[in-house]
């Protein structure tokens, strides 16, 4: 557990409010305390001893951690890091949500990871280029095993080793900052060379710890290494394809042009309004804050419905899960698919 916020990171914020329009929770409530600027004010109050850390529990939970407040901040405030610090301090002992405790247990032990991958038809072990390794993710291998299978199929140069641990993003984002960093280090040692990941959230965390040069999110890697693609036809017409950005991929790593470029090759690309805005999955948020998570996504679901898309492409398993379930709930026919799988359809 850390004791204090990094003072220099708190000092960066000049309370200009440029981040307010970008923040989904502020847009929902209009309340200063649920804005990035307001939350930083609260962190300062804790730092200066004016508020006890437990007072920050409601906002530590309400904030999506989407980091939409970062790229719009001219002062360069690293809000994502500050939030991790806030949760590290606030979510200790009994204040850590039960669900988070359960998830931690699942991903930090060998047995847990084995159970997640067990019987799951992910990519199979394969020794190919030792300097190019596929990361399987912890929940992705359980929930969407076809994604890793597809990536392995798309490029046979990629090595796959099923015995790999979790990158620790879950820990880092949910109050175990140090542990989360250690886990990323460990994964960085297990997998050599460049690590390819199909999860934007993992890509951002892993890059943060082991360096950007060692990590490639799938769309990034594809656009740097693979050739042109053909348009996908469905009964003679090209597909209408939209995208939901992965928050950490976009706001943390600045990757958002790459997937769009690829999708333009595959069909009629339609920009979903606020495609860069959080879908409300936000890691464990959709489990911890069900109601708010639904409020955050509700407009997006309407927009997607009106656009009449064939496919909505995602870059992160959490977003896939959220969009599948919320589109189904609203009876929208659009299919949700990971970018790798859509590429596969075109070949």
């Amino acid at each position, binding site marked *: 557990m850390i004791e204090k916020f990094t003072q*220099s990171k708190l*000092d*960066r*914020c*000049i*309370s*200009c*409010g*440029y981040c*307010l*329009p970008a923040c989904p929770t502020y847009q929902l409530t*209009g*309340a*200063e*305390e649920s*804005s990035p600027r*307001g*939350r930083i*004010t*609260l962190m300062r*109050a804790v730092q200066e001893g*004016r*508020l006890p850390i437990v*007072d*920050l529990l*409601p*906002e530590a939970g309400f904030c999506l951690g989407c980091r939409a407040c970062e790229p719009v*901040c*001219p*002062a*360069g405030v690293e809000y994502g890091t500050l939030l991790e610090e806030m949760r590290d301090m606030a979510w200790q002992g009994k204040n850590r949500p039960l669900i988070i405790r359960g998830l931690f247990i699942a991903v930090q032990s060998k047995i847990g990871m084995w159970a997640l991958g067990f019987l799951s038809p992910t990519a199979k072990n394969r020794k190919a280029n030792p300097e190019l390794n596929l990361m399987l993710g912890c929940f992705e291998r359980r929930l969407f095993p076809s994604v890793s299978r597809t990536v392995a199929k798309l490029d046979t140069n990629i090595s796959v080793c099923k015995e790999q641990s979790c990158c620790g993003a879950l820990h880092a984002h949910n109050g175990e900052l140090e542990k989360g960093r250690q886990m990323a280090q460990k994964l960085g040692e297990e997998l050599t060379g460049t690590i390819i990941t199909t999860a934007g959230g993992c890509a951002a965390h892993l890059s943060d710890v082991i360096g950007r040069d060692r990590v490639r999110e799938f769309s990034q890697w594809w656009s740097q290494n693979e050739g042109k693609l053909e348009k996908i036809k469905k009964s003679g017409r090209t597909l209408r394809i939209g995208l939901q950005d992965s928050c950490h991929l976009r706001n943390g790593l600045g990757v958002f042009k790459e997937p769009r470029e690829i999708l333009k090759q595959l069909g009629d690309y339609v920009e979903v309004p606020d495609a860069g805005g959080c879908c409300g999955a936000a890691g464990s948020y959709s489990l911890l804050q069900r109601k708010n998570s639904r409020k955050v996504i509700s407009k997006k679901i309407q927009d997607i419905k009106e656009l009449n898309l064939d496919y909505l492409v995602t870059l992160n398993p959490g977003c896939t899960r959220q969009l599948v379930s919320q589109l189904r709930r609203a009876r929208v026919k659009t299919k949700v698919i990971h970018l790798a799988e859509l590429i596969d359809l075109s070949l």
Partner: protein
Amino acid sequence: MKLDSASLVSQLESLLGKDLVRSDATALESYSHDATPIFQGLPEVIVAPKTTADVVKIVNFARQTSTPIIARGAGSNLCAATVPLSGGIVMSMANMKKILEVSKSEMLAVVQPGVTNLDLDQLVEKDGMRFIPDPGSRSVSTIGGNVATSAGGLRGLKYGTTKNYILGLEAVLGTGELIRTGGRLVKDVAGYDVTRLLVGSEGTLAVFTEITVALAPRPSTSKYGVAYFDDLSCAAIAVEKIISHGIMPSTLEFLDNTCITAVEEFAHLGLDTGAGALLLFGDDGEGESVSLTVNKMAEIVKESAGGRGVSLAQDVAAAEALLYARRCSLPALARLGSLSILEDIAVPRPKMAHVVTAIEGIGAKHNLRIGTFGHAGDGNLHPTIVVDKDNAAEVKRAELALSEIFHLAIAAGGTITGEHGVGSAKLPYLQELLGETNMQLQRSIKHVFDPDNILNPNRLGS
């Protein structure tokens, strides 16, 4: 009768319903600041009215209980106008953000005060219109806040500022009475111009609940260019030249080297970080005339002393990027230190070259880093002192420098605030600028509108 905080909260809850009242420690703390550094003060309760009737109720309640009320838009003001230094109620206008009407035939819109400036402008864009006032904070700040500070922006020279675009107001006075001033008319001289008096009143005379703004046609063409200079005074001289050629363009903004470097670090636009100053010039309008004006400006600045090259933005996106870069100068400067103190002096344009040089001198004398940017066409300068907040000696030197900058402005026939307002930050300097008779008049005006001194007390009119 004055109430303790707990009774204040419970009575407001029964008056308005629990949903509109917040008093937990985090809510109070988060409203203890605005965008002004250093100033801080805790409110006792936050209310967020939904209707004009709610506002009337709150003001009447505050009057009966002698409780201060601070109306708050987005809290982006830079003069500590919304910091609750006297405790009391912060009234957030965030729940009143409807655009009630847009009339193309009358070129006006009727809005609630909590609408953000950019939201209004984007909505009316569909009908080929625009809302002229465009403060750097336009994506954040509210129309209510803009009216209460008479906000300026990047188009002041040619088009004026907020005060030129407010047709009518619905407002609740400190007495709890609801008034309507002005309206939809282009002309109306029946009575004193109370609308104009309320514009810029910083929440001390009345709370706006509905605002009728004048819109303008959206020009079909706009063009921008950038020129670099050896220093800010050369850029100021170039601005003088442009205007003395009879050109009145929409935009003439400048940044010094410190600002250019900070902005470039954030926005990556390929600005020349080796130059001493950057001048952003541009105009908008119809057809060929825009190009003619902008090309003429380019010619003039090219010839001007200390010039280091001119280029024109190739497309709208490039121009927008430049404007954005200019707008975010202040927060970008925050990268340089842990405390940025920004000023807002305005001086007659012919004095500007002298004043910017003198500011550099003040910075050198006190060994301070001062980044200056501003609305050059308006003679409105924002010297920003960036210091380490834990270095007491440096903070002290900054205070000295600020006072010197104010006196420099006043001596040049200028003012201590061109557009950000007085708030608490400039109040100590107001008397010196206005003199006793004018100050007394201000107090008398305040007393008529707010006899119990509940609206944003201890600020303007106090």
